[in-house]
């Protein structure tokens, strides 16, 4: 596996976590819990953006693996 595809996997993982956190934030009855989950989603958003930028650079550096 190339670095780019590994990073892409981590990105997918992070997005999955975001989705599940979203579900729990909607499902939970408690306001404090909701806030904590929503803040977590925002934090992960920032990380996802950084990671996407990095993937662009990686694909530029190793164009033969683009799309993997």
């Amino acid at each position: 596996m190339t670095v780019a595809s590994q990073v892409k996997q981590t990105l997918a993982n992070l997005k999955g976590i975001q989705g599940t956190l979203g579900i729990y934030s909607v499902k939970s009855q408690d306001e404090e819990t909701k806030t904590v989950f929503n803040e977590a989603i925002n934090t992960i958003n920032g990380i996802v953006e950084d990671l996407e930028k990095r993937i662009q650079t990686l694909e530029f550096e190793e164009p033969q693996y683009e799309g993997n």
Partner: protein
Amino acid sequence: MGDAMQEWIEILLRSFSLLVLVLFSARVIGKKNMANVTPFTFMSYIAIAVISALISTKVIKNIAFGFIALGVWVLLPVAIDYLSIKSKLIHDIVIGKGTVLIKNGKIMEENLLRARITGEELLRDLRSKNVFNLADVEFALMESNGEINVFMKSDKKPLTAHDIGKKVAPRSESQTVILDGTPLNEPLTSLGLNQGWLKTQLDKMGVSIDNVFIGQVDSSGDLYVDLFDDSINIPQPKVKEMLYANLEKCHADFMKYALETKNKEAKNMYQKNEQKLKELKEKLEPYLLR
């Protein structure tokens, strides 16, 4: 024969009307638990019971006199209860104050005498509160109903999350949404859910609602079920634990990338986000793991 017949009917009528009367006066007297009534209330209960038994079996011939006595024993305790709520003085006279039996870890012998309990009885009551060492007790109080309540020395008290400075997620009680194979609509709607949601969840587990004895939804919205058929093992919700494991994996990935990359800028980005994920993990731990 005719007289005996009449008497028979009279006793039946008396008993029946008194039963109804006592039923209603029990509602008037209130909802106190039998186990923690004060001696006075206990005696008034007995008086009511005895008087009504005497009226219904015609021991008290004059029904009017009987009802006067019954009325006094029902209404006066209610009136005294009401007054003792309003006035501290009457409360202390009628219901009495608690007696301090142990203070600063030392037994107050004269108070023991005043409460008329022996050392043996004190030890027995402490044991029933799961206290076997007198040395562990900081304070003990005999309530007006005779119950003994104990305050342990601070190093002998059970550890709480607050003591170890650990944050725990707020958690409210679970709602029962299935009972005996029947979905309960009221708790479902109070959670903002419906039977369609319930059906989806049960389909996911692969069980039919007829097989569910009790189903509860916890405060995070996960469904827990107990089945009639105990030979079936169903997966219980582990989504939050998986989520946490996933988060840990992502954290590890970032650490790895930070070590592997030669690019200075990328290394900084990975390290910064690794730190973020670490903080996130710590923050979410109480909510995801129990």
